[in-house]
């Protein structure tokens, strides 16, 4: 099944942020979107996650129009935003319980061999979020987003402000996710993350352009 975005349009006031954005991703692929701040990366991911409504365009998964069916969209997509979508006062376990609502057996199992286990959540299961490092919070956010086992995972700058070991842990999970047939769509500014991506797109002036990263960062910056 293919994940496809067709001709997405979005305008904020007079500014046309997205102007006919289209792309397609097959299972087991990682797609990266680069672009300077304010280019519309987060807007695009918010639309794909169902947070924002586009002015036009379609998002399909296996032929189904996800934008016209919030239930199908919620089932198909997991989203990790830039912020911290966690309850700061509560522990990792309490936060996971919210997203595993009514599925406590699944949670117990996943803590043994699922996504939380892969991201080493059990090592800080009872730590309150406000006492966690940035890497812990990001790993927990990914675990929460994956609670309903979506085939498509969207991540908005997942490794921003993380240390090297946290990045390595998260990247290892991304590789495993795509190896198992998942589709990863991430926005990033981080050059090492480009290597994870099977396809890279440059978002500029509201449109996506395929881009092949060759290690020449100054050239990329000039094109942005």
């Amino acid at each position: 099944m293919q994940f496809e975005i067709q001709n997405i349009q979005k305008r904020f006031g007079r500014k046309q942020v997205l102007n006919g954005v289209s792309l397609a991703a097959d299972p087991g692929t990682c797609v990266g979107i680069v672009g300077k701040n304010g280019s519309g990366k987060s807007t695009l991911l918010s639309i794909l996650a169902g947070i924002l409504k586009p002015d036009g365009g379609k998002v399909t998964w296996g032929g189904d129009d996800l934008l016209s069916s919030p239930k199908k969209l919620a089932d198909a997509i997991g989203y990790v935003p830039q912020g911290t979508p966690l309850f700061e006062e509560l522990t990792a376990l309490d936060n996971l319980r919210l997203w595993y609502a009514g599925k406590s057996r699944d949670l117990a199992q996943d803590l043994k061999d699922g996504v939380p286990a892969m991201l080493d959540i059990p090592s800080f299961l009872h730590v309150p979020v406000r006492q966690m490092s940035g890497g812990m919070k990001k790993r927990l956010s990914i675990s929460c987003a994956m609670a309903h086992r979506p085939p498509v995972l969207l991540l908005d700058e997942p490794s921003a402000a993380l240390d090297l070991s946290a990045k390595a842990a998260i990247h290892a999970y991304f590789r495993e996710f795509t190896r198992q047939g998942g589709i990863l769509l991430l926005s990033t500014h981080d050059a090492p993350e480009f290597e994870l991506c099977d396809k890279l797109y440059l978002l500029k002036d509201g449109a996506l352009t395929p881009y092949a990263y060759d290690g020449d960062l100054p050239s990329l910056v000039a094109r942005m």
Partner: protein
Amino acid sequence: MMKLRWQYLKTQIHRMLMRFPVLFLVTILLLGAICGLAWAQFTAGKDEEDFQSLARQKVSVAVVGDTSESYLGIGIYAVEHMDSSRFSVNFIDCTEEEARAMLEAEEVEAYLLIPEGFLDAVTTAENKPVTLVIGGNQGGIGVELVRELADMVSRVLTSSQTAIYTLVDVEANYGRNAYDSKDVTQINLRYFDVILSREEMYQKETVESVRTLSRIEYYACAGVVLFLLLWGLNGTLLLTKRDFSLPKLIRTRGVGAVSQVTAELFAYSLVLLLCLALCVGGLLFGLSKAGVSFSLPGPSESAPSFLLGLFPLVFSMAALQYFLCQLSDNPIVTLLVTLLVSLVLGYLSGCFYFLSYFPKEVQELQVYLPTGMQVNLLQSAFLEKDAAFCIKGLTGYTFLFWLCSVLIRGYRLKK
């Protein structure tokens, strides 16, 4: 989707309970401050008379005339110490120049000019009127009280004159021996009845609640509402959101603005109720240990039924505070807004001063303010009055604040 909504509610309750120790500590400090204020009020007034005079300031009236004349002096002393006037009138003996100066300086409401030989004129039925001088710019209840006083003095004098002339008639017709008759005794008794029916001298009409509630009841009502208002400062800690990632994300899973606001408001109300229950329990325990007699209002006078009766009050207060915390994503802004709104509403609802001190317009407005209804709901519990208006009003306010909060949350989720 229902499971996620239910889990969101449980998580919100859990989240707020996690902050409970800090909140409770703040609550105890607030309660201590309020108790301190109440104690200062109690000890400032020595007895119920002082409390009454707090609610009704005395009217000062100057008296110009020879008060050294024994009968006139006794008359003024009697009026000054009558039950109906001793809390309301203060006579000042002075010259006419001094009285005029005080009237111009608005230190007295009016002055009475008693002509020389006034008592002789009374006994000989000459017309030597007492002049009542009132400032041209003055009005209001003080002046009305002075007019009442003048009417009362006239009535005393005409009754005295009637008695004197009746006795003169009796003497003329039956001789001095007639003073020994039972008829004269009857006349004297009727005269005393007329003159000494002191409670009927003023027509009294109580319009403010302080006259119908005891001090401790009044301060209990004001204190509870003030406590709940100030507790709202805790709300800024619990309810102000800087990061909307989670609400936005959970909305995509079917928990929209209505469900989010309802769950958060319900959880906040429960924590507020829990804090109040602990404080009421603690206070009752403390009062019983101190040997102070105090019974909770309501048919059963029990703490659970009292708290049950407070539901409309607690939920409306929680809804107000929740709404205020939705106005900004900056905790400092919401803290200041909550503090300002709490102080203004508390002030206008009689939590700091008696309502009778305020203009009539404010007193009328208080009835329709959410905090005014909350105070009135509590007072009606003590007075065993019907509180349907307050309950309906508070339910309406709860719905209104909930609706406004839903609209704000909906707008923010779509931003």
